[in-house]
Protein backbone atom coordinates (compact mmCIF):
# COMPACT_ATOMS: atom_id res chain seq x y z
CA UNK A 1 0.00 0.00 0.00
CA UNK A 2 0.98 3.57 -0.40
CA UNK A 3 2.60 5.34 2.53
CA UNK A 4 0.33 7.64 4.52
CA UNK A 5 2.36 10.44 6.05
CA UNK A 6 -0.20 11.08 8.76
CA UNK A 7 -0.26 7.47 9.87
CA UNK A 8 3.51 7.38 9.69
CA UNK A 9 3.82 10.55 11.72
CA UNK A 10 1.58 9.14 14.39
CA UNK A 11 3.35 5.80 14.64
CA UNK A 12 6.75 7.53 14.73
CA UNK A 13 5.60 9.53 17.71
CA UNK A 14 3.80 6.63 19.31
CA UNK A 15 6.99 4.60 19.14
CA UNK A 16 8.97 7.33 20.83
CA UNK A 17 6.27 7.62 23.49
CA UNK A 18 6.41 3.91 24.24
CA UNK A 19 10.19 4.10 24.40
CA UNK A 20 9.84 6.80 27.06
CA UNK A 21 7.67 4.44 29.07
CA UNK A 22 10.65 2.16 29.58
CA UNK A 23 12.63 4.53 31.78
CA UNK A 24 9.16 5.51 33.02
CA UNK A 25 8.87 2.02 34.45
CA UNK A 26 12.35 2.46 35.87
CA UNK A 27 11.39 5.67 37.63
CA UNK A 28 8.10 4.20 38.84
CA UNK A 29 9.95 1.23 40.31
CA UNK A 30 12.96 3.29 41.34
CA UNK A 31 10.86 5.45 43.63
CA UNK A 32 9.46 2.36 45.31
CA UNK A 33 12.75 0.78 46.28
CA UNK A 34 15.14 1.84 48.98
CA UNK A 35 17.69 4.55 48.37
CA UNK A 36 20.46 2.01 48.11
CA UNK A 37 18.96 0.30 45.06
CA UNK A 38 17.53 3.05 42.93
CA UNK A 39 20.35 3.31 40.42
CA UNK A 40 20.10 -0.42 39.91
CA UNK A 41 16.36 -0.24 39.47
CA UNK A 42 16.37 2.52 36.88
CA UNK A 43 19.42 0.94 35.33
CA UNK A 44 17.56 -2.32 34.80
CA UNK A 45 14.97 -0.51 32.71
CA UNK A 46 17.61 1.05 30.50
CA UNK A 47 19.28 -2.32 30.29
CA UNK A 48 16.00 -3.89 29.19
CA UNK A 49 15.68 -1.27 26.48
CA UNK A 50 19.23 -1.72 25.23
CA UNK A 51 19.26 -5.50 25.36
CA UNK A 52 15.93 -5.96 23.66
CA UNK A 53 16.75 -3.36 21.04
CA UNK A 54 19.72 -5.39 19.93
CA UNK A 55 18.03 -8.76 20.31
CA UNK A 56 14.97 -7.58 18.40
CA UNK A 57 16.74 -6.34 15.30
CA UNK A 58 18.91 -9.44 15.24
CA UNK A 59 16.38 -12.18 15.94
CA UNK A 60 13.39 -11.09 17.98
CA UNK A 61 11.43 -9.43 15.24
CA UNK A 62 11.84 -12.45 13.05
CA UNK A 63 10.81 -14.87 15.76
CA UNK A 64 7.71 -12.80 16.35
CA UNK A 65 6.69 -11.75 12.87
CA UNK A 66 8.47 -14.17 10.54
CA UNK A 67 6.47 -16.76 8.65
CA UNK A 68 4.76 -18.84 11.25
CA UNK A 69 6.26 -22.14 12.24
CA UNK A 70 3.22 -24.11 13.24
CA UNK A 71 1.51 -21.12 14.77
CA UNK A 72 3.97 -21.17 17.62
CA UNK A 73 6.86 -18.98 16.59
CA UNK A 74 8.00 -16.93 13.61
CA UNK A 75 10.55 -18.18 11.13
CA UNK A 76 13.96 -16.72 10.51
CA UNK A 77 12.98 -14.70 7.43
CA UNK A 78 13.75 -11.33 9.00
CA UNK A 79 16.98 -12.21 10.79
CA UNK A 80 19.10 -9.08 11.11
CA UNK A 81 16.22 -7.14 9.56
CA UNK A 82 16.78 -8.77 6.21
CA UNK A 83 13.98 -7.59 3.96
CA UNK A 84 12.62 -5.07 6.43
CA UNK A 85 12.87 -1.78 4.63
CA UNK A 86 11.74 1.77 4.30
CA UNK A 87 8.79 0.98 2.08
CA UNK A 88 5.37 0.00 3.27
CA UNK A 89 4.35 -3.60 3.06
CA UNK A 90 0.65 -4.13 3.20
CA UNK A 91 0.20 -1.25 5.65
CA UNK A 92 0.41 2.48 5.27
CA UNK A 93 3.60 2.90 7.25
CA UNK A 94 7.15 1.80 6.51
CA UNK A 95 8.03 -1.75 7.47
CA UNK A 96 10.93 -0.50 9.53
CA UNK A 97 8.57 1.65 11.51
CA UNK A 98 6.26 -1.25 12.28
CA UNK A 99 9.34 -3.19 13.34
CA UNK A 100 10.55 -0.54 15.76
CA UNK A 101 7.07 0.08 17.12
CA UNK A 102 6.99 -3.60 18.03
CA UNK A 103 10.52 -3.35 19.40
CA UNK A 104 9.63 -0.93 22.12
CA UNK A 105 6.79 -3.18 23.23
CA UNK A 106 9.25 -6.01 23.69
CA UNK A 107 11.51 -3.64 25.58
CA UNK A 108 8.96 -2.45 28.06
CA UNK A 109 7.80 -5.97 28.76
CA UNK A 110 11.23 -6.95 29.98
CA UNK A 111 11.40 -3.75 32.01
CA UNK A 112 8.13 -4.57 33.77
CA UNK A 113 9.33 -7.96 34.90
CA UNK A 114 12.26 -6.45 36.81
CA UNK A 115 9.76 -5.85 39.60
CA UNK A 116 10.30 -9.41 40.69
CA UNK A 117 14.03 -9.13 41.24
CA UNK A 118 14.20 -5.65 42.70
CA UNK A 119 17.01 -4.99 45.13
CA UNK A 120 18.56 -8.45 44.84
CA UNK A 121 19.44 -9.46 41.30
CA UNK A 122 22.93 -9.91 39.91
CA UNK A 123 23.28 -7.75 36.86
CA UNK A 124 25.14 -10.38 34.85
CA UNK A 125 22.47 -12.94 35.52
CA UNK A 126 19.77 -10.48 34.62
CA UNK A 127 21.39 -9.90 31.25
CA UNK A 128 21.39 -13.60 30.50
CA UNK A 129 17.94 -14.14 31.89
CA UNK A 130 16.60 -11.13 30.03
CA UNK A 131 17.92 -12.28 26.69
CA UNK A 132 16.52 -15.74 27.21
CA UNK A 133 13.22 -14.44 28.44
CA UNK A 134 12.56 -12.02 25.63
CA UNK A 135 13.54 -14.68 23.11
CA UNK A 136 11.71 -17.64 24.59
CA UNK A 137 8.75 -16.03 26.29
CA UNK A 138 8.03 -12.67 24.71
CA UNK A 139 8.75 -13.48 21.10
CA UNK A 140 6.51 -16.56 20.92
CA UNK A 141 3.70 -14.77 22.76
CA UNK A 142 3.92 -11.84 20.35
CA UNK A 143 3.80 -14.32 17.52
CA UNK A 144 0.76 -16.09 18.92
CA UNK A 145 -1.28 -12.93 19.12
CA UNK A 146 -0.01 -10.69 16.38
CA UNK A 147 2.44 -12.52 14.16
CA UNK A 148 0.14 -15.04 12.58
CA UNK A 149 0.20 -17.47 15.49
CA UNK A 150 -2.48 -19.72 16.83
CA UNK A 151 -4.11 -17.27 19.24
CA UNK A 152 -4.74 -14.69 16.57
CA UNK A 153 -6.03 -17.43 14.30
CA UNK A 154 -8.35 -18.60 17.04
CA UNK A 155 -9.79 -15.11 17.18
CA UNK A 156 -8.42 -14.06 20.54
CA UNK A 157 -8.21 -10.27 20.49
CA UNK A 158 -5.35 -8.33 21.99
CA UNK A 159 -5.40 -4.81 20.70
CA UNK A 160 -2.25 -3.45 22.25
CA UNK A 161 -0.73 -6.16 24.33
CA UNK A 162 -2.81 -7.06 27.37
CA UNK A 163 -1.75 -10.63 26.89
CA UNK A 164 1.54 -10.23 25.11
CA UNK A 165 2.93 -7.50 27.31
CA UNK A 166 1.08 -7.52 30.60
CA UNK A 167 0.07 -11.09 31.28
CA UNK A 168 3.47 -12.25 30.13
CA UNK A 169 5.43 -9.88 32.31
CA UNK A 170 3.04 -10.06 35.23
CA UNK A 171 2.85 -13.82 35.52
CA UNK A 172 6.48 -14.07 34.53
CA UNK A 173 7.29 -11.81 37.45
CA UNK A 174 5.35 -14.09 39.75
CA UNK A 175 7.39 -17.09 38.70
CA UNK A 176 10.62 -15.17 38.86
CA UNK A 177 9.86 -13.92 42.36
CA UNK A 178 9.22 -17.45 43.51
CA UNK A 179 12.58 -18.56 42.21
CA UNK A 180 14.69 -15.68 43.44
CA UNK A 181 13.06 -15.53 46.86
CA UNK A 182 12.26 -12.74 49.26
CA UNK A 183 14.47 -9.80 50.02
CA UNK A 184 16.32 -10.05 53.31
CA UNK A 185 14.11 -8.59 55.99
CA UNK A 186 10.96 -8.72 53.90
CA UNK A 187 7.99 -8.87 56.21
CA UNK A 188 10.22 -8.11 59.14
CA UNK A 189 11.11 -4.48 58.76
CA UNK A 190 9.71 -1.65 56.71
CA UNK A 191 10.81 -1.21 53.14
CA UNK A 192 9.23 2.11 52.48
CA UNK A 193 9.44 3.72 49.02
CA UNK A 194 12.40 6.05 49.07
CA UNK A 195 10.75 8.62 46.79
CA UNK A 196 7.06 8.70 46.06
CA UNK A 197 7.48 11.76 43.82
CA UNK A 198 9.82 9.73 41.63
CA UNK A 199 7.18 7.04 41.35
CA UNK A 200 4.57 9.64 40.48
CA UNK A 201 6.84 11.04 37.80
CA UNK A 202 7.21 7.54 36.44
CA UNK A 203 3.43 7.16 36.48
CA UNK A 204 3.08 10.43 34.59
CA UNK A 205 5.44 9.24 31.87
CA UNK A 206 3.63 5.93 31.72
CA UNK A 207 0.20 7.51 31.41
CA UNK A 208 1.53 9.80 28.69
CA UNK A 209 3.31 7.04 26.82
CA UNK A 210 0.36 4.73 27.05
CA UNK A 211 -1.48 6.84 24.51
CA UNK A 212 1.24 5.86 22.07
CA UNK A 213 1.00 2.28 23.27
CA UNK A 214 -2.73 1.90 22.81
CA UNK A 215 -3.72 4.48 20.23
CA UNK A 216 -0.52 3.78 18.32
CA UNK A 217 -1.61 0.18 18.02
CA UNK A 218 -4.23 1.31 15.53
CA UNK A 219 -1.16 1.80 13.28
CA UNK A 220 -3.01 4.73 11.81
CA UNK A 221 -4.10 8.21 12.79
CA UNK A 222 -7.79 7.55 12.45
CA UNK A 223 -11.03 7.14 14.33
CA UNK A 224 -9.94 3.88 15.84
CA UNK A 225 -6.84 5.53 17.25
CA UNK A 226 -9.04 8.28 18.66
CA UNK A 227 -11.28 5.71 20.29
CA UNK A 228 -8.30 3.91 21.75
CA UNK A 229 -6.98 7.19 23.05
CA UNK A 230 -10.24 8.09 24.73
CA UNK A 231 -10.88 4.75 26.37
CA UNK A 232 -7.28 4.64 27.55
CA UNK A 233 -7.68 7.88 29.39
CA UNK A 234 -11.09 6.99 30.77
CA UNK A 235 -9.99 3.62 32.05
CA UNK A 236 -6.88 5.07 33.65
CA UNK A 237 -8.93 7.70 35.41
CA UNK A 238 -11.53 5.23 36.60
CA UNK A 239 -8.78 2.94 37.84
CA UNK A 240 -7.09 5.75 39.68
CA UNK A 241 -10.29 6.80 41.42
CA UNK A 242 -11.31 3.23 42.20
CA UNK A 243 -8.03 2.36 43.91
CA UNK A 244 -8.03 5.70 45.69
CA UNK A 245 -11.47 5.06 47.13
CA UNK A 246 -10.75 1.42 47.88
CA UNK A 247 -7.69 2.39 49.89
CA UNK A 248 -9.78 5.06 51.56
CA UNK A 249 -12.29 2.49 52.72
CA UNK A 250 -9.48 0.53 54.31
CA UNK A 251 -7.78 3.57 55.84
CA UNK A 252 -6.52 6.65 54.13
CA UNK A 253 -6.76 7.56 50.48
CA UNK A 254 -3.38 6.62 49.10
CA UNK A 255 -1.77 8.80 46.48
CA UNK A 256 0.48 5.93 45.56
CA UNK A 257 -2.68 3.88 45.29
CA UNK A 258 -4.19 6.46 42.99
CA UNK A 259 -1.32 6.31 40.52
CA UNK A 260 -1.14 2.53 40.82
CA UNK A 261 -4.82 2.42 40.05
CA UNK A 262 -4.16 4.58 37.04
CA UNK A 263 -1.63 2.04 35.82
CA UNK A 264 -4.07 -0.77 36.55
CA UNK A 265 -6.68 0.97 34.44
CA UNK A 266 -4.17 1.47 31.66
CA UNK A 267 -3.17 -2.16 31.74
CA UNK A 268 -6.72 -3.43 31.68
CA UNK A 269 -7.83 -1.31 28.75
CA UNK A 270 -4.79 -2.27 26.70
CA UNK A 271 -6.20 -5.37 25.02
CA UNK A 272 -9.62 -3.77 24.72
CA UNK A 273 -8.73 -0.32 23.49
CA UNK A 274 -9.74 -0.92 19.88
CA UNK A 275 -12.90 -2.82 20.69
CA UNK A 276 -14.82 -1.09 23.47
CA UNK A 277 -16.38 2.32 24.01
CA UNK A 278 -15.84 4.91 26.68
CA UNK A 279 -18.65 3.80 28.98
CA UNK A 280 -17.28 0.27 29.00
CA UNK A 281 -13.87 1.72 29.70
CA UNK A 282 -15.24 3.33 32.84
CA UNK A 283 -16.25 -0.10 34.10
CA UNK A 284 -13.10 -1.84 32.94
CA UNK A 285 -10.90 0.73 34.62
CA UNK A 286 -12.84 0.84 37.86
CA UNK A 287 -12.86 -2.93 38.18
CA UNK A 288 -9.15 -3.02 37.39
CA UNK A 289 -8.41 -0.51 40.13
CA UNK A 290 -10.18 -2.58 42.74
CA UNK A 291 -9.10 -5.95 41.46
CA UNK A 292 -5.42 -5.08 41.29
CA UNK A 293 -5.56 -3.51 44.73
CA UNK A 294 -7.06 -6.72 46.07
CA UNK A 295 -4.41 -8.73 44.26
CA UNK A 296 -1.77 -6.61 45.89
CA UNK A 297 -3.27 -7.11 49.34
CA UNK A 298 -3.50 -10.83 48.65
CA UNK A 299 0.14 -10.92 47.56
CA UNK A 300 1.26 -9.09 50.66
CA UNK A 301 -0.92 -11.28 52.81
CA UNK A 302 0.71 -14.37 51.38
CA UNK A 303 4.11 -12.97 52.29
CA UNK A 304 5.12 -13.12 48.66
CA UNK A 305 7.84 -10.68 47.69
CA UNK A 306 6.94 -9.97 44.09
CA UNK A 307 8.36 -6.70 45.11
CA UNK A 308 6.85 -3.98 42.98
CA UNK A 309 3.63 -5.69 42.00
CA UNK A 310 4.07 -6.43 38.35
CA UNK A 311 1.93 -9.49 38.98
CA UNK A 312 -0.84 -7.69 40.85
CA UNK A 313 -1.05 -4.79 38.45
CA UNK A 314 0.15 -6.03 35.08
CA UNK A 315 -0.61 -9.71 35.45
CA UNK A 316 -4.03 -9.47 37.03
CA UNK A 317 -4.88 -6.24 35.23
CA UNK A 318 -3.92 -7.78 31.92
CA UNK A 319 -5.92 -10.91 32.63
CA UNK A 320 -8.95 -8.88 33.52
CA UNK A 321 -8.51 -6.76 30.43
CA UNK A 322 -8.29 -9.78 28.17
CA UNK A 323 -11.49 -11.16 29.59
CA UNK A 324 -13.17 -7.76 29.64
CA UNK A 325 -12.47 -7.47 25.94
CA UNK A 326 -14.54 -10.57 25.48
CA UNK A 327 -17.31 -9.05 27.53
CA UNK A 328 -17.49 -5.45 26.38
CA UNK A 329 -16.38 -5.55 22.74
CA UNK A 330 -18.89 -3.80 20.53
CA UNK A 331 -19.18 -4.20 16.81
CA UNK A 332 -19.43 -0.45 16.25
CA UNK A 333 -15.96 0.22 17.56
CA UNK A 334 -13.68 -2.49 16.31
CA UNK A 335 -15.89 -4.85 14.38
CA UNK A 336 -16.10 -7.49 17.09
CA UNK A 337 -18.87 -8.27 19.54
CA UNK A 338 -18.41 -9.48 23.08
CA UNK A 339 -20.52 -11.29 25.61
CA UNK A 340 -22.80 -8.32 26.21
CA UNK A 341 -23.68 -8.37 22.55
CA UNK A 342 -24.34 -12.06 22.87
CA UNK A 343 -21.12 -13.37 21.39
CA UNK A 344 -20.02 -16.18 23.68
CA UNK A 345 -17.37 -17.34 21.23
CA UNK A 346 -15.38 -14.18 21.61
CA UNK A 347 -15.46 -14.54 25.36
CA UNK A 348 -14.25 -18.10 25.14
CA UNK A 349 -11.48 -17.16 22.73
CA UNK A 350 -10.34 -14.48 25.14
CA UNK A 351 -10.26 -16.86 28.05
CA UNK A 352 -8.31 -19.41 26.07
CA UNK A 353 -5.86 -16.86 24.74
CA UNK A 354 -5.26 -15.31 28.12
CA UNK A 355 -5.16 -18.63 29.94
CA UNK A 356 -2.60 -20.04 27.58
CA UNK A 357 -0.45 -16.95 28.00
CA UNK A 358 -0.71 -17.16 31.78
CA UNK A 359 0.43 -20.74 31.79
CA UNK A 360 3.11 -20.35 29.16
CA UNK A 361 4.58 -17.24 30.75
CA UNK A 362 4.55 -18.67 34.23
CA UNK A 363 5.97 -22.05 33.38
CA UNK A 364 8.65 -21.01 30.95
CA UNK A 365 9.75 -18.12 33.11
CA UNK A 366 9.97 -20.43 36.07
CA UNK A 367 12.15 -22.84 34.15
CA UNK A 368 14.40 -20.13 32.76
CA UNK A 369 14.82 -18.57 36.16
CA UNK A 370 15.69 -21.91 37.68
CA UNK A 371 18.23 -22.59 34.98
CA UNK A 372 19.90 -19.23 35.34
CA UNK A 373 19.83 -19.52 39.10
CA UNK A 374 21.39 -22.96 39.02
CA UNK A 375 24.11 -21.97 36.62
CA UNK A 376 25.03 -18.39 37.43
CA UNK A 377 23.05 -17.55 40.51
CA UNK A 378 20.27 -15.04 40.08
CA UNK A 379 20.92 -13.39 43.35
CA UNK A 380 23.65 -11.33 44.94
CA UNK A 381 25.22 -12.36 48.25
CA UNK A 382 23.65 -11.37 51.51
CA UNK A 383 26.27 -8.70 52.12
CA UNK A 384 25.84 -7.26 48.67
CA UNK A 385 22.12 -7.09 49.17
CA UNK A 386 22.53 -5.45 52.55
CA UNK A 387 24.86 -2.83 51.17
CA UNK A 388 22.56 -2.30 48.22
CA UNK A 389 22.87 -3.06 44.54
CA UNK A 390 23.96 0.44 43.61
CA UNK A 391 27.25 0.04 45.39
CA UNK A 392 27.66 -3.69 45.18
CA UNK A 393 26.68 -4.12 41.53
CA UNK A 394 27.49 -0.76 40.00
CA UNK A 395 29.94 0.85 42.40
CA UNK A 396 27.71 3.92 42.38
CA UNK A 397 25.82 5.92 44.92
CA UNK A 398 22.50 7.40 43.88
CA UNK A 399 22.62 10.53 45.98
CA UNK A 400 25.66 12.34 47.34
Amino acid at each position, binding site marked *: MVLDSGDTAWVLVATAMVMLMIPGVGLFYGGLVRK*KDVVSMIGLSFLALALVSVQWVLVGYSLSFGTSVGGFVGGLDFLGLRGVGMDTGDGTIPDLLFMVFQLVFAGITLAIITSAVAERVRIGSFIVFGLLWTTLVYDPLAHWAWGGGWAGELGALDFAGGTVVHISSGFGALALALVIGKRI*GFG*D*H*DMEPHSIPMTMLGAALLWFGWFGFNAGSALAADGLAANAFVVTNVSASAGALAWLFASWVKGKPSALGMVSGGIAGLVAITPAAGFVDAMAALVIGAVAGILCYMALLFRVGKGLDESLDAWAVHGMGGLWGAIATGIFAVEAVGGYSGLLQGNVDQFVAQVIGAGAAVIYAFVVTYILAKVVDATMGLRV*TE*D*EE*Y*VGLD*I*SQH*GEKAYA
Partner: protein
Amino acid sequence: MMKVEAIIRPERLEQVKKALEEKGFVGMTVGEVTGRGEQKGIKLQFRGRTMDVDLLPKVRIELIVKDEAVDSLIETISTAARTGRPGDGRIFVIPVARSVRVRTGEEVV
Protein backbone atom coordinates in the same frame (compact mmCIF):
# COMPACT_ATOMS: atom_id res chain seq x y z
CA MET B 1 21.02 12.92 84.23
CA MET B 2 22.49 11.10 81.31
CA LYS B 3 22.27 11.21 77.58
CA VAL B 4 22.14 7.74 76.13
CA GLU B 5 23.16 7.69 72.50
CA ALA B 6 22.59 4.55 70.53
CA ILE B 7 23.87 4.01 67.03
CA ILE B 8 21.80 1.20 65.56
CA ARG B 9 20.78 -0.37 62.28
CA PRO B 10 18.08 1.67 60.55
CA GLU B 11 16.00 -1.43 59.98
CA ARG B 12 15.83 -1.96 63.74
CA LEU B 13 14.47 1.46 64.57
CA GLU B 14 10.87 0.37 64.71
CA GLN B 15 11.59 -2.52 67.07
CA VAL B 16 13.69 -0.34 69.30
CA LYS B 17 11.05 2.36 69.43
CA LYS B 18 8.44 -0.18 70.35
CA ALA B 19 10.59 -1.73 73.04
CA LEU B 20 11.34 1.69 74.48
CA GLU B 21 7.72 2.63 74.59
CA GLU B 22 6.85 -0.53 76.44
CA LYS B 23 9.39 0.42 79.06
CA GLY B 24 7.97 3.93 79.23
CA PHE B 25 10.73 5.75 77.44
CA VAL B 26 8.85 8.10 75.21
CA GLY B 27 10.88 11.24 74.53
CA MET B 28 13.69 10.78 72.09
CA THR B 29 15.59 12.39 69.27
CA VAL B 30 16.55 10.48 66.16
CA GLY B 31 18.99 11.30 63.40
CA GLU B 32 20.49 9.70 60.33
CA VAL B 33 24.19 9.04 60.36
CA THR B 34 26.62 6.68 58.75
CA GLY B 35 29.30 4.75 60.50
CA ARG B 36 31.69 1.93 60.67
CA GLY B 37 32.92 -0.28 63.44
CA GLU B 38 36.08 -2.25 63.92
CA GLN B 39 35.45 -4.44 60.90
CA LYS B 40 35.53 -1.37 58.71
CA GLY B 41 32.06 -2.04 57.44
CA ILE B 42 31.34 -4.76 54.96
CA LYS B 43 33.84 -6.43 52.69
CA LEU B 44 32.53 -7.30 49.25
CA GLN B 45 34.34 -9.86 47.13
CA PHE B 46 34.56 -8.66 43.61
CA ARG B 47 36.27 -10.64 40.93
CA GLY B 48 39.10 -11.59 43.18
CA ARG B 49 39.36 -8.16 44.71
CA THR B 50 37.99 -7.07 48.04
CA MET B 51 36.14 -3.84 48.39
CA ASP B 52 35.40 -2.23 51.75
CA VAL B 53 32.05 -0.57 52.01
CA ASP B 54 32.48 1.53 55.07
CA LEU B 55 30.21 4.22 56.40
CA LEU B 56 27.03 2.25 56.21
CA PRO B 57 23.75 3.95 57.09
CA LYS B 58 22.91 3.94 60.76
CA VAL B 59 20.36 5.61 62.95
CA ARG B 60 21.28 7.51 66.06
CA ILE B 61 18.78 7.57 68.91
CA GLU B 62 19.31 9.88 71.81
CA LEU B 63 17.42 9.91 75.07
CA ILE B 64 18.00 12.07 78.07
CA VAL B 65 17.10 10.10 81.16
CA LYS B 66 17.64 10.00 84.87
CA ASP B 67 20.82 8.23 85.95
CA GLU B 68 18.91 5.32 87.42
CA ALA B 69 17.16 4.61 84.14
CA VAL B 70 20.36 4.10 82.21
CA ASP B 71 20.78 0.40 82.87
CA SER B 72 17.30 -0.48 81.88
CA LEU B 73 17.58 1.71 78.82
CA ILE B 74 20.80 0.10 77.63
CA GLU B 75 19.32 -3.30 78.19
CA THR B 76 16.18 -2.43 76.28
CA ILE B 77 17.92 -0.91 73.31
CA SER B 78 20.61 -3.47 72.96
CA THR B 79 18.15 -6.33 73.11
CA ALA B 80 15.86 -4.81 70.54
CA ALA B 81 18.61 -3.71 68.21
CA ARG B 82 20.64 -6.88 68.27
CA THR B 83 20.93 -9.16 65.26
CA GLY B 84 24.15 -10.73 66.46
CA ARG B 85 26.08 -9.76 63.38
CA PRO B 86 28.74 -7.07 62.97
CA GLY B 87 27.24 -3.65 62.53
CA ASP B 88 24.69 -3.86 65.32
CA GLY B 89 26.02 -0.66 66.79
CA ARG B 90 27.05 1.00 69.99
CA ILE B 91 25.47 2.69 72.94
CA PHE B 92 27.24 5.55 74.67
CA VAL B 93 26.31 7.25 77.89
CA ILE B 94 27.21 10.87 78.40
CA PRO B 95 26.67 12.96 81.52
CA VAL B 96 24.22 15.82 81.16
CA ALA B 97 24.50 18.86 83.36
CA ARG B 98 21.12 20.42 82.78
CA SER B 99 17.98 19.87 80.81
CA VAL B 100 15.36 22.50 80.04
CA ARG B 101 11.93 22.22 78.47
CA VAL B 102 11.57 25.01 75.97
CA ARG B 103 7.78 25.20 76.19
CA THR B 104 7.88 26.14 79.84
CA GLY B 105 11.46 27.15 80.43
CA GLU B 106 11.65 24.84 83.40
CA GLU B 107 14.34 22.33 84.24
CA VAL B 108 13.20 18.79 83.59
CA VAL B 109 14.48 15.35 82.93
